[in-house]
């Protein structure tokens, strides 16, 4: 089956619902392009600023999707991102470590965080929201400690060139990385036994357990995956800004949740899905950038992201009646 045929699985008739969000994104682009023709649709703004820079936000939202599919929260992704970017900066800048090696260490740290999160959630049976809220704070503390609360600049141009400077079809590499990641995630979730089982974990955990699935291993694995992807988002962040600071990464958390939940209302409604998530990130970013160019105050950003989260959860609650997002993290 082709990807399109798959997205259009026979059970769903409501194309309007599936395409509402992509359409809304399109409308936003057209409206702001019309209102601010000189600034909004320039390649600097749209391709680099929105598609390129927001790739970090996309990666972080994608990191959330996997545990969400499996029925778990991971609040620690943003702290994890911050840690990864700081590891890259400290190793590369302060200790002169090869950038490639620094990236590997950062990803490994993300994996370790995932292993610890998963161990606490599955091994000790602690609720994932609480667990990752706790580890998130611990990680943020560690970042302040190892960075001595500094901003570390001057990361190897090798990374920056390959993230935000280098372009394919005029769009920075970072965009293509997260696009590739989302294709890979889509494939695993839709076409492999692993993806099918993760879905059962989130939607029928007791059924899955009674059928002999290793539910604990799956949930644990989901936490590790989100740890690694969040760390990769941190690497992208370091590559986008050429530096790392101990705080700003935490601002990615709420938009990531907004995008993941909003994305679950699109393309494959009722299901946390990577493509819907991407569209959601870019829809939100486009809206905010456009509003800022109209001269609206920066506080709209928070209104926008917060409002989107509440709206998305409300929408999926409505969708649940027919399609049921069935997100039941307490199970």
């Amino acid at each position, binding site marked *: 089956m082709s990807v399109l045929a798959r997205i259009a699985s026979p059970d769903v008739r409501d194309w309007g619902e599936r395409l509402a969000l992509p359409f809304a994104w399109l409308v936003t682009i057209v409206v702001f392009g019309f209102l601010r023709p000189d600034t909004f649709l320039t390649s600097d703004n749209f391709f680099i600023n929105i598609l390129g820079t927001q790739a970090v936000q996309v990666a972080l939202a994608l990191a959330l999707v996997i545990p969400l599919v499996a029925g778990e929260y991971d609040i620690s992704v943003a702290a994890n991102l911050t840690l990864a970017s700081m590891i890259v900066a400290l190793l590369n800048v302060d200790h002169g470590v090869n950038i490639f090696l620094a990236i590997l260490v950062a990803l490994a740290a993300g994996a370790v965080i995932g292993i610890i999160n998963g161990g606490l959630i599955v091994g000790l049976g602690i609720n994932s929201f609480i667990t990752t809220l706790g580890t998130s704070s611990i990680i943020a503390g560690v970042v302040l400690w190892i960075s001595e609360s500094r901003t570390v600049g001057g990361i190897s141009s090798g990374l920056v060139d390959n993230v935000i400077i280098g372009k394919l079809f005029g769009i920075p590499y970072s965009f293509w990385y997260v696009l590739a990641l989302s294709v890979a995630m889509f494939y695993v979730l839709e076409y492999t036994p692993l993806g099918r089982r993760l879905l059962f974990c989130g939607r029928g955990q007791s059924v*899955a357990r009674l059928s*002999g699935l290793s539910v604990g291993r799956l949930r644990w694995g989901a936490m590790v995956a989100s740890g690694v992807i969040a760390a990769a988002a941190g690497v992208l962040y370091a590559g986008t800004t050429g530096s790392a600071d101990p705080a700003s990464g935490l601002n990615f958390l709420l938009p990531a949740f907004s995008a993941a939940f909003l994305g679950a209302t699109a393309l494959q409604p009722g299901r946390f899905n990577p493509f819907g998530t991407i569209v959601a990130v870019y829809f939100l970013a486009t809206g905010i950038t456009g509003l800022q160019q109209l001269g609206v105050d920066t506080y709209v950003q928070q209104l926008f992201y917060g409002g989107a989260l509440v709206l998305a959860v409300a929408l999926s609650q409505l969708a649940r009646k027919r399609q049921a997002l069935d997100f039941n993290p307490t199970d």
Partner: protein
Amino acid sequence: MPVNTGDETVSKQENSNILELKGASKRFGAVQALWNVDFAVRTGEVMALVGDNGAGKSTLIKGVAGIYSLDAGEVFFEGEKVSINGPRDAAELGIEVVYQDLALADNLDVVANMFLGRERVRTPFRLDEASMERAANETLASLSVTSLRSVRQNVAGLSGGQRQAVAVAKAVMWNSRVVILDEPTAALGVAQTRQVLDLVRRLAEQGLGVVVISHNLHDIFEVADRITVLRLGQRVAEYKVAETTQQEIVRAITAGDLQTVPGLEVEV
């Protein structure tokens, strides 16, 4: 792996126990959910398991399926002692359970549910959807389940009877030898109950050992060959349906003789 016995072997084994449990005990904290229970089902028969709420019926089958580890007791499959340490072990032997309320995940389609944990693949990284869909359709057809609009619809959209039929189909598509159904008709109307009972009967006719848990004695007398009665975690009686009455069963359920006085059980 379950051996696919020829007809001849099946008829030879007609009266032997395919699945047997001896001295099964299980305790949850202060509750002795099972105490020294013997239980057996033969090929080609429907064995009913009855008892009041809390009598230990679900615990017994979860013990057989490896969901709970029994504190004591032995399980024999085709006369041989086996150890079942999880649903996978049970499935390997050909024992399938249709759990009360928890047989299927609502928000996934019929095919995904039927193949949960045993997906067919073309390569390790590629589900074989077409083959699974075909097999799901064939199994449903072989059970004369024809009322489904599509095996690609979500389970949430099925009627109670259709759900139960899908759950049974899920259980029998693996060369199963024993199928255990926990309260399969509890939530069903008259017509749907009828269909499920027919289905249960058909499984036994196909040579499977079938265990049915039910509250409804009328249903049981219609479908079962024998009845095992549990009371307060103990097996108090076993009857042939042909040689007993509903009154006798009710008496056994409410007042059958216990081996020990509840509360004074020997510690296991």
